[in-house]
């Protein structure tokens, strides 16, 4: 599957992984993930300013699995591509992949916030 074909947010993923539809539990996980997204965006900005490739890989790795677990499929795929690129030293791709991660994390954040608001309403 191509990166852009992956869902930005699959709301069925987390309940399936947790084997529960208990709203309070799901919200806890989404809230924690949103906090981590903010940290990721901040850390990526710092790493970009410092051209710190080792840190890009670490950041990508750190949130890759969590993204897939909570249903942020496109972000998970973008982070996997960034990590892979850092490992294979494909410098040319890295800037584009970071831009993709930043853009996707923003879209993901919006989608998860919308999901949380839906519940509140």
């Amino acid at each position: 599957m191509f990166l852009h074909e992956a869902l930005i947010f699959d709301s069925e993923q987390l309940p399936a992984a947790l084997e529960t539809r208990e709203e309070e539990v799901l919200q806890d996980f989404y809230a924690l993930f949103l906090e981590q997204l903010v940290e990721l965006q901040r850390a990526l900005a710092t790493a970009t300013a410092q051209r710190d490739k080792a840190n890009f890989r670490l950041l990508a790795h750190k949130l890759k699995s969590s993204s897939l677990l909570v249903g942020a499929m496109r972000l998970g795929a973008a982070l996997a591509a960034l990590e892979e690129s850092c490992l294979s030293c494909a410098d040319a791709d890295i800037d584009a992949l970071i831009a993709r991660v930043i853009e996707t994390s923003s879209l993901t954040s919006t989608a998860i916030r919308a999901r949380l608001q839906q519940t509140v309403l």
Partner: protein
Amino acid sequence: MKKAPLKKPLVCILDDDEILTRMLVSQLERRQYRCLPFLKTEDFLVHLDNQEKADIYIVDFFLDSKKSSGLDVCRKIKSRHRAPVIMLTSNKGTDTIVSCLNAGADQYTVKPCNSNELVARMEATMRLYGAAPEFPGPGPDLADRYREHFSVNWLLRTLTVNNGTNVRLTEKELALFELFVVAADSTLNRRLAYGAIYGIEMDPLNRAVDILASRLRRKLQGLDAGIDIVTIRGGGYMLVLPQSEVGADVPS
């Protein structure tokens, strides 16, 4: 006669990914396991040294720690306890899997993991150790076999022998020593040791393990406690302890 209720097996989890860890805890508690999650390697090591032994350990391969990798932690568990270890990895690369198994891991699973698969792997592994829910009761600790000869402080990386002297080891020397402890009275194969320490396949001409063994041997001899490393021709190395069944029959 009434049957005593079975004690829930204790699972120790070390993963710096909070979301994944919380999810594992949720999935395992639902299946009647007790969980002890750790996000920091240092906290986990303190627990490993001082607290209740777990029935099974789940350790992430890629830890966000400058001091220890998942492989280091796996070796530490194995040199301390006779308990199963499952490594969580994010990739299916042969090097990763081989190094996990060489470091003593009993199983590995690729993240994000399916909970049914993980539990099936846990239970299959625990059955081999006699620690599955239906067969509670862990086996003897490896550390108990060695207690009369030495003790190891992992955080300070010191090896203290029973005459009170001690020596500081480098991370890699300690890693090799841990592998000797796990190997007990068998030969420690060079290639397996290399994979377990460095996380990659060994080039046949690479002498890193030989150099490491030689350095460790000098330090052990300096302790003057009768602990030594002998070379097993064509195979690897073996740890020899004084007046002990461990390493008593060293092949010439």
